[in-house]
C-alpha cells in the first residue's frame, strides 16, 4: 500500500534513521513503537510527507516520491498522496470555527467538490459509526477529549482514505475515553481498513498490531 525504501531522515547533523524500509500491508494494522525521541512520529509523518525524507523513496501504488524532488513537483505528488491517506492527531485538531458536522463534510466539499446534501448523509453515518451522531450540531469547544478524537476519526474517514495514519490517538485521553476511541479503531481494523498507528502504550500496540515496528533508541 505505502512503502518506504532505504529512507533516511536527518535533523541537522543528527540522523534519525538511515536506510529504513517499511511496508504497510493492505487491510493490516502496522503499529510503530519506541521511546520518546526515537522518531516514531516522524516516521509516521513521513508517510504523508508532513516530514520530507533526505534519501530513499516513498511509494504509494504507482505514485513515487523520491527524495530531493523540486518543490513544485514534490507539492503536486504530495497532494495526490494526501488525497489517498488521512491522519488523526494526538491533539485532535478539529476546526474550532465549524460544527462537528461541518468538520466532517468540509474536506469532501472542498477537495472533491461534493454537494453538501450528498455528503451530509454519509457524514452522519460516519458520526454514527464512531458513536457521535447526537453531537452533529455541536462545536468542538463543547466536546470532551474522547468525543473530539472520535469526531476527528470520522473527519479523516470522510475523505475515503486508503490508509489511515493515527499519531498517538489516545495519549491525551483519560481511561474511559481511551476505551471508546480504541473500540472505534478496533472496529476499523475489523472492517479491513489499512492502519498505521504510533503509540507508546505497549498493551494497546500489541493488541491491535498485525505488524509491530519497534524503533531503536536514537543513535547519538
Amino acid at each position, binding site marked *: 500500500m505505502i512503502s518506504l525504501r532505504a529512507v533516511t531522515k536527518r535533523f541537522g547533523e543528527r540522523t534519525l534513521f538511515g536506510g529504513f524500509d517499511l511496508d504497510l500491508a493492505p487491510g493490516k494494522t502496522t503499529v510503530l513503537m519506541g521511546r520518546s525521541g526515537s522518531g516514531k512520529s516522524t516516521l509516521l509523518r513521513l508517510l504523508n510527507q*508532513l516530514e520530507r525524507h533526505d534519501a530513499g523513496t516513498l511509494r504509494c501504488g504507482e505514485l513515487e516520491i523520491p527524495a530531493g524532488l523540486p518543490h513544485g513537483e514534490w507539492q503536486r505528488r504530495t497532494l495526490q498522496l*494526501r488525497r489517498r491517506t*488521512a491522519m488523526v492527531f494526538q491533539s485532535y485538531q478539529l*476546526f*474550532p*470555527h465549524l460544527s462537528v458536522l461541518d468538520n466532517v463534510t*468540509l*474536506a469532501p466539499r472542498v*477537495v472533491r467538490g461534493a454537494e453538501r446534501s450528498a455528503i451530509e448523509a454519509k457524514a452522519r453515518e460516519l458520526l454514527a459509526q464512531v458513536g457521535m451522531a447526537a453531537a452533529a450540531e455541536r462545536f468542538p469547544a463543547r466536546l470532551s477529549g474522547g468525543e473530539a478524537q472520535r469526531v476527528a476519526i470520522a*473527519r479523516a474517514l470522510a475523505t475515503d482514505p486508503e490508509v489511515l495514519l493515527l499519531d498517538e490517538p489516545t495519549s491525551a485521553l483519560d481511561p474511559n475515553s481511551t476505551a471508546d476511541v480504541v473500540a472505534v479503531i478496533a472496529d476499523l481494523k475489523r472492517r479491513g481498513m489499512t492502519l498505521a498507528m504510533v503509540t507508546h502504550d505497549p498493551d494497546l500496540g500489541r493488541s491491535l498490531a498485525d505488524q509491530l515496528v519497534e524503533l531503536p533508541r536514537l543513535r547519538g
Partner: protein
Amino acid sequence: MAHVASLLALLLLLVDGCALFAQSLPQRYRDAGEIRWGADAEGGAPFVFVDPNNPRGGEVGFEVDLATELGRVLGVRFRRAQVPYESLVQVLDRGDCDIVLNGFEATPARQALVRLSRPYYVFQQQLSVGAKSTDVRSLDDLVGKRVGVLGQSQSHQLLLERPGIEIVVYESNVTAYEDVVNGRNAASLADVPIARALRPMFPQLRDVGEPFGAYHYCLGIRRSEPELQRALDAAIGALLADGSLERIYRRWSLWTDAQRQLGDPAVANAYVDTAGSASPAGSGAFDWGMAMALLGEGALRTFGISVVSFALAVLLGMAVALWRLHGPRPLRWLAVVYVELLRGTPILVQMLLLYYGLGSIEWLQLGAVEAGVLGLALNYAAYEAEIYRGALLAIPRGQREAAMTLGFTTAQMLRHVVVPQALRLSLAPSTNDFIALFKDSSIVMVITVVELTKQYQMLANQSGRFIVLGLVTSGLYLAMSLPLAFLARRWERAMERDHA
C-alpha cells in the same frame, strides 16, 4: 484757534517723536508696550510671508510694513502671532492675540462676531480660469461648474450668494489654483492682491474679466474693546493722511485708484456702528434647522467614506498579510515595504500626494471623495495587515497540518481553515481600528471634502456657536462609534467563551 491747534500738533510731533496717538491707546497696551497681531504666514504673499528667494530675511509683506507703521504712530511694538487663517476670530476671542491683521475681509459673518476698524485697503475680486477654457467670461457663466475659493473669504461669501455654483472650499489659494490648473475645477475666485501675488506661480492660469466689486480689509478687534478700535481707527487715519499707506501699497505694487475711497467718510465709518453690537447681526438669523441639516449631511458623508474605505482596507489588509506570510518572495518583500511605508509616513502627506501629486497627471486624476476614500483605505490597510498577520500566526500549526493531511491545497487551507479563524481573532482589534477611522476620516478635509468635522468648522466659524455645534457634532460621531464599540466588546466576550 485753528492755528493754535495745528501749532500744538506740530509741537507734539516734535516733542513726542512719532507716537502721536499713544495717549489714545488703552492703558494695558501702553503698559505691555506691544500689540500682538494675529496672522497666518502660510497665507503667503503679499500679506505676510517669508520670501523664498531670501529665506533669512525674515517675514515680509505689506501687512508687516503696515504693522510697523501702526506701531510707530501708536508708540508700541507690533509683534506677530501665528494664527491659522480659518481660526482668526476664535483665537482673537480667546485672547491669544490682540488684533487681527491678515487680509481680514469685512464679511457680514465677521461683522457679527468682532469689531472692525476703518478699512485700510480696498480690494476687488478676480476670476481666473485655465488657459484652455473659453466658456467662462464672468460669474454668470459659472452656474453648474466647480469653482474653488478660500474658505471664510469674501470670494466664498460672493459665491454663496449665487445659487447653482458648485463651491469647493480650500484652506489655501495655492491649492485652489492648483485644482484649476489640473482641470478639477473650472475657475477660482480670489482677492486681487492674492491673485496678483500668485500669478507668477501659475502661468497656466488666465484672468477673465476686469477686477470687480469694492471690498475692505480691516483690522479685527474684540467686541469688548471700543477704545482700542478708536485708537486703531485714528492710527489708520493718520497713516492715510501722511501718505504712509500709499507708500506701502506702491512699494508692493498694490496701489490702485480704488484706494482713494479710503478717505471717503462713508468708507471710513462703514463699520463703526455695526461692530461691537452686543447681539451680533447674524445671531437672531442663525438658521438652526439649516445647520442641523448640514451637519446631518456631513455625518452621512463621514459614515459613507468610513464604511467604504474600511471595507477596502479589510480586503487589501488581508491580501497584504497573506502575501507577507505565504506569497512568493518578491510579493513578500512588497508586502513588508507597503506596510512600513504606509505606517511610517503621515496620512496627511499621503492624502496630499494622492490628490494634488497624482492630480497633475491627467489619467491618474481622482475626484476628492475618491482620493479621500482611497487614501484612508491604503493607510488603514497597512494597520489591518499587521492585525491579520498576527492573527494568522496565532492559528496553531496543527490546524494547517490537519487541513493539509485532508488533501487541501495551500489556498484551500487558507481559505477554509486559517483565514476564517484569523478573522474571528482579529474582529475585536479590527473593530477598534474602524472606530478610529471614523474620527480620522476628517483628514479628507485637506483635499476639499466637506465631511462632518469640516462642516462643523465652517458653521462654527460663521456663527461663533462653537459649543452647541461642537456638542451636536460630537453626538453624531458617538452615534456612529458607540454601536461599534458595543459590538467589539460582545465579540471579545464571545471569543473568550469559545477559547475557555
